[in-house]
């Protein structure tokens, strides 16, 4: 990812567009992985003759407008020729309406294109998105470019625009794009998903299966072990005077080692047994409940296989009462187990 540093200056606006101009106040753009994935997907599905595709970005804006979070994106059809560009605005409006139905909290924040190039058409489209009425006015519209050229690195850039041009006609199809900083942010919930997706990144067929609990644990432990190996290799080579020593590194490692708690073995033994018993008891009871329930369902309907009749009904009732009693007792057990775990 391009790591650029930013100096953002809010410059005074030209007199031409006073009153209609969006602000160019500093802005921070946060992009969620969902939006990036949508853009990449759209880029894959473009028509063969299209250089780039565009689409609408949706998300939320912080109260002072200083931070824009891009949450998702949808594609909008468009066609570019030598001297003209057509964007399916009708489509954009309908899609936006449909999207807002399902996500009432998200608003229009800008648009994306899948090429790094900024040209006259970009300015035109930008002016549409930041305009009054259907656009993001009075907030600035964010323009995100994600270059998806084959064989090159993906390059993401975010811009907002300021109007330029001396006459109203010139201002309509020109804009000064101002680069703004952006960061990729994902929530706690996305972490596990991203991890699963990242598992496939080195695979030949670009696919992976979803790991079970125990597999995930195994992988995490292996990861930790390899990290420990790396560190101990480094330490050994320092001791052998093969690698340069570093006080900071040593201090850091010492701090990390100091995190290991010092506890009484008897206490550990006690806690360990308490917890392992909780865990096993719950597991045992859960399985018992399962068996009991199936058994009771079987018994409830057993009467019919045994030939049916009134006599069977009575015997049946007893049987079932007995079961009910058992179930009750079991439940108490379970209740106490639950309490035990809570304690």
């Amino acid at each position, binding site marked *: 990812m391009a790591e650029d540093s930013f100096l953002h200056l809010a410059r005074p606006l030209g007199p031409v567009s006073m009153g209609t101009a969006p602000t160019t106040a500093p802005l921070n753009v946060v992009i969620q992985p*969902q939006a990036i994935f949508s853009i990449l997907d759209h880029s894959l599905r473009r028509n063969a003759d299209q250089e780039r595709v565009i689409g609408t970005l949706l998300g939320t804006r912080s109260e002072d407008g200083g931070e824009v979070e891009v949450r998702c994106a949808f594609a909008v059809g468009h066609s570019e020729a030598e001297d003209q560009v057509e964007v399916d605005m009708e489509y954009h409006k309908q899609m936006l309406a449909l999207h807002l139905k399902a996500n009432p909290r998200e608003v229009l924040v800008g648009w994306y294109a899948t090429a790094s190039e900024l040209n006259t058409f970009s300015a035109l489209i930008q002016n549409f998105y930041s305009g009054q009425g259907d656009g993001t006015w009075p907030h600035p519209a964010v323009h995100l470019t994600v270059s998806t050229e084959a064989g090159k690195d993906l390059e993401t850039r975010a811009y907002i625009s300021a109007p330029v041009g001396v006459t109203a006609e010139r201002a309509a199809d020109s804009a000064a794009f101002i680069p703004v900083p952006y960061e990729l942010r994902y929530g*706690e919930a996305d972490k596990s998903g991203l991890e699963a997706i990242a598992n496939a990144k080195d695979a030949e067929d670009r*696919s992976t299966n979803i790991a079970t609990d*125990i597999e995930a644990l195994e992988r995490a432990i292996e*990861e930790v072990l390899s990290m420990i190996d790396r560190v101990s290799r480094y330490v050994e080579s320092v001791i052998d005077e093969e690698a340069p020593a570093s006080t900071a590194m040593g201090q850091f490692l010492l701090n990390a080692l100091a995190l290991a708690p010092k506890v009484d073995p008897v206490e550990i033994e006690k806690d360990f047994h308490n917890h392992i018993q909780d865990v096993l008891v719950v597991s045992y009871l859960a399985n018992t409940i399962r068996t009991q*329930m199936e058994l009771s*369902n079987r018994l409830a309907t057993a009467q019919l296989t045994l030939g049916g009749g009134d006599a069977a009904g009575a015997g049946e009732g007893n049987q079932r009462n007995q079961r*009910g009693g058992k179930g009750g007792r079991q439940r108490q057990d379970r209740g106490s187990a639950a309490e035990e775990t809570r304690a």
Partner: protein
Amino acid sequence: MAEAQAPITAVKVEALVVMKIIKHGSQTFPTVSTGSLVGMDVDGTLEVTNSFPFPVVETTTESHFDNAAPNPAASAPRAKGNAAYQAEMIRMIREVNVDANNVGWYTSANMGNFVNMNVIENQFYYQKELNERTVALVHDVSRSAQGSLSLRAFRLSAKFVEAFKENKFTSEECLPPPPNNTIGILSNIRYQDIFEELPVEIHNSHLITTFLHQLQGPSTSGPIELPLSLSALEASPFSKSSILTPNFDNLTLNIDPFLEKNCDLLLDSIEAHNTETNNYQYYQRVLGREQQKINNWKQKRAQENATRSALKQPLLPEDEWQRLFKLPAEPSRLESMLNTRQVEQFSRQVDSFVSSTTGKMFAVKGNLLPGETAN
């Protein structure tokens, strides 16, 4: 058309869909969220390539089970307004070259509590009304929060669909056929037969693969200068967590909340089971009483007829009881079946949790008390 094709054996989910489902699920958590899946069916593998959420609209559920919980989001997939929404959305995305075939729907769940009437009815609606080859993806939000993604795909089995269509969930249907199959039992549905689970595979596009490789953070090629002080070390780009640092959430030893939640859910299930059993017991008592009455009546009628024949009078009809007495309707066994399936789900979940937790606990103990691991 379904007959000519191979049965669906696997589900391949694009990374985009995984992320969209996670986003939707965690936004609405703990309420249930639902949405539609689009994609393609390639030789028995259902490729899910895009998805979109359903709007939550207050609608009256058209359930033929009266006690369905009034949860607008959970029943959204089969609501009338959403069928139109879905058709509209699919029409729209077709224009931008997205696969415009509906292949199912998704729902979020909390600790695996997804086996309920809503899910059944939604999937039934999809398999019956829209397209037989559809699938339900279940994303378990709370389980995913523990470290490993939980995304599963289900379909209703053909047997269950057949029975559900005719609403045949009497006890005869739920039993294995007796050796002397005289009553002509058609099916014997067990709780294991409700769902078919399909393996889920996550698939990345080339661009996403590129993207993920770029997210790796600073490259480690070439010699790196050692930091001068502790603060320099902490400020260096290497110690900042990069986007895809391995997730060690599943190493945490956090047992109690999970067990507690599971216990609560199990308790609820037992409660539900008891209600069902009581209903059934009540039915059996009423049935028994009615049958007793009928028998008495039959005996009486037989005696009467015996006297009448002795007196050479015309006999009274013996089957009049069918008009006089009405047998109670048998309650549906579906609820208790679903409940059993749900409990099975919970216990599997607990098992899998226990297996990894005991491992972790022994590891911790071994670390804190070295030398005592031998026993």
